[in-house]
């Protein structure tokens, strides 16, 4: 393994976060605070509790998940797209780095940044509402699995994108709607029966449900099913990344 190579990519990507601290860290904190003010205080005051949990506390796992998914995808997609765009990717291709090592560097850094943001949001949430974590290990497992999976998805998008519009279109048109409709702000039991069935086709439902279970023992779908769905999505992303490097899709001719 070229550990120095992995470390070089990882540190380079992390340094980029340092240079864009406002965008990387401050902006998710501000947007989360706004969600708490709007949904937690203004609207939440009209909803006393959801299945025994105060509404403000209920939305915390969903809010963390929302930022986690967006951050993972945008960090990883930008991380690999930018060297492609400016042409510095030649150096990565000509270096003695295997595809696995390249992925470890870029996806590792993207996942780290997303987890940092997730933890900052959890800390910010504490200012607004008191909450507890019933299963910390399960919570960490979901946190890790989700960030790695969506960082891989971001990496795939970054390879696929050949302009900035494509880079934005998936997070904006796919990830955001799926997250908002995946139970970030409500329990799917609050939906009419037909939409309860439809929403089960949304993979984000399983991530949020499993993650919320780790906080409050409260789940829309069984935690085992959530875990299996997350692992399945991770496996799918791994297969696509493996295929990209095997074929050199949009990387090598």
């Amino acid at each position, binding site marked *: 393994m*070229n*550990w*120095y*190579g992995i*470390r*070089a*990519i990882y*540190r*380079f990507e992390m*340094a980029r976060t340092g*240079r864009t601290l406002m965008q990387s860290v401050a902006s998710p904190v501000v947007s989360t605070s706004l969600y708490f003010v709007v949904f937690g205080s203004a609207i939440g005051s009209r909803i006393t509790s959801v299945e025994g949990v105060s509404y403000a506390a209920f939305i915390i796992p969903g809010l963390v998940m929302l930022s986690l998914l967006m951050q993972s995808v945008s960090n990883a997609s930008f991380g690999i797209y930018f060297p492609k765009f*400016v*042409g*510095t990717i*030649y*150096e*990565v*291709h*000509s*270096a*003695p*780095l*295997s595809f696995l090592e390249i992925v470890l560097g870029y996806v590792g850094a993207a996942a780290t940044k997303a987890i940092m943001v997730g933890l900052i949001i959890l800390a910010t949430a504490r200012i607004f509402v008191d909450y507890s974590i019933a299963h910390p290990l399960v919570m960490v497992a979901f946190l890790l699995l989700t960030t790695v999976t969506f960082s891989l998805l971001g990496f795939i998008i970054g390879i696929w994108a050949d302009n900035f519009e494509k880079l934005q279109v998936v997070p904006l048109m796919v990830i955001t709607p799926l997250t908002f409709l995946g139970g970030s702000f409500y329990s799917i039991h609050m939906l009419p029966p037909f939409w309860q069935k439809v929403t089960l086709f949304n993979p984000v439902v399983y991530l949020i449900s499993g993650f919320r279970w780790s906080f409050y023992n409260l789940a829309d779908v069984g935690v085992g099913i959530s875990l299996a769905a997350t692992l399945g999505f991770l496996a799918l992303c791994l297969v696509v990344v493996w295929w990209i490097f095997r074929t*050199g899709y949009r990387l*090598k*001719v």
Partner: protein
Amino acid sequence: MNAVARTADDDILVVRGVDKVYPGGFQALKHIDLEIRRGEIFALLGPNGAGKTTLISIICGIVNLGAGSITVDGHDVVRDWRATRSLIGLVPQELKTDAFETVWNTVRFSRGLFGKAPDDAYIERLLKDLSLWDKRDNKMLMLSGGMKRRVMIAKALSHEPQLLFLDEPTAGVDVELRRDMWAMVRRLRESGVTIVLTTHYIEEAEEMAHRVGVINKGELVLVEEKAALMHKLGRKQLRLQLHDALDAVPAALASHHLELAAGGNELVYNYDTQGERTGITGLLADLAAAGIRFRDLSTRQDTLEQIFLQLVKEGA
């Protein structure tokens, strides 16, 4: 520059029967065979789109190999890619840099990428050698084009490669900086690095290379010692400045295939230096017999550029 002495198994790079067809069907390389000797400076000449960058990109692992085989220091670039890539440094044609990184960080990053443990003392020496030390904390976007080119070279040398590819190293560089680059390339070569450079500037090859390869339309037209190439293909021209202008070449001199130039004031005679006889003695005797007097004479040998154009034209 004198040729590098050759010993058995002393080729650092061996290219055998390499073909490359791009997905659109364009054949960029046609059965390339080439050996690069350890410690030499090899100049690869060719017009735009000849296949120079494709060949280098395949050797470096940026473009997939079509057919054939390539070994670097005995390692196959496909099977043993980790070993070959560690041995190679590449300075691409275009200035591709991270605008917001500092010189120091970007060079350090390259060393890590190539699997080498950090060595700040080496990077410091490298930056000093390339007159970049004062700029180490500058962001790339603050640097001039020439300075960026130096940083690209520093990045390529950061992992101490044995074989360095310089793809059009002095494209868009002013004359002073070009001479500076040439001096630097010579220093590199003296430190034991083998250098392959592609160039449009024949002057560059003529000035620096031990051997010259000419590539045109994906085919390696010729590989020669530079001196031998110029000697072998070099045609010479004898120009005689006449005392009295002529209207036409006299019939008595027809066998010499002379041309009139400068409004009849010059006679031009082309001859081959490799020929058994140059024919100069006979020509001068015939001129004397015809009563043609001349004030002065000069000879001129083809430059590498003329040889190159001639080869490319023949291949067209």
